[in-house]
């Protein structure tokens, strides 16, 4: 594949922007968590694209920083999704809702 690395980065940016928009726009907490996952995937893609770029620049010597870090990101994403969903469950138990609009308790 000889796609220029810039296109990979651009795809990542697009993915991130969509995730960000969804993060702000959606009211359902679970969907918001999914948008977070989208953003994390965009980050992953960025890492991998950079790793590929460096690999090709170094004449084929694999740059492992990208994939390693991508692994870590995946782990963290899993962790975050787990904890977040546990919180959603607790929230649902207390307020019978998963809509963000109903949980603005920190409001002035």
């Amino acid at each position, binding site marked *: *594949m*000889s*796609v*220029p*690395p*810039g296109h*990979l*980065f*651009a*795809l*990542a*940016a*697009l*993915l991130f*922007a*969509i995730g*960000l*928009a*969804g993060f*702000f*726009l959606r*009211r*359902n907490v*679970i*969907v918001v*968590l*999914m*948008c977070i*996952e*989208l953003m994390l*995937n965009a980050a*992953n*893609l960025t890492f*991998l694209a950079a*790793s*590929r*770029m460096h*690999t*090709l620049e170094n004449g*084929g010597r*694999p*740059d*492992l920083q*990208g*994939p*390693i870090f*991508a692994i870590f990101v*995946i*782990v*963290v994403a*899993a962790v975050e*999704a*787990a*904890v977040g969903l546990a*919180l959603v*469950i*607790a929230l*649902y138990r207390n307020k019978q809702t*998963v*809509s963000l609009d109903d949980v603005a308790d920190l409001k002035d």
Partner: protein
Amino acid sequence: MANLIFYVMAALVVVGALGVVVARNPMMSILSLLASFFALASIYLLAGFQTLAALQILVYAGAILVLFLFVIMLLNLADEKPLERIDMALFHERKTIWTLVVAGALLGIGAFTALELAPPAVAAGVQIPEHGIDDLQGLANAMFSRYLLSFEIISVLLLATAVAVVVLAKRNRGTPRLDQGGEST
């Protein structure tokens, strides 16, 4: 040929992502996300990251999304009426406009950087190593030597998460249990 597949997969990723944002039913969101993940995995593959592609499917699609699915099922959110609709009315909200502005700004700067500033296409003749950039051997070597500390830390993190999730999701029994008989202690 590979390039064409890439662009198709890229389009699929975007469509999937949009699906997550736009879908009314949370179930549809999950399914779009699934599609997006699959497309992303194939992109990883095309780019030469075999292990990561596998991990993406295994962990993301196989574990995380399943978790989401469980929760939605548990809370019975899937078969309810759509919780919210994305109407045109939503677009008149200040929040929507600002969101689009901010996201658009980030996208713009990101795309600009990516397309204008990134280095040009690969030099001809350079090849991706045969077993992929992240062949398992190399990955393992790196993980357990150079990145050992991080590895240990995230393993601790996983442990902590397990504990935390259990604690958070446990059914709350209300006030602390008194001993039977009601003697004050």
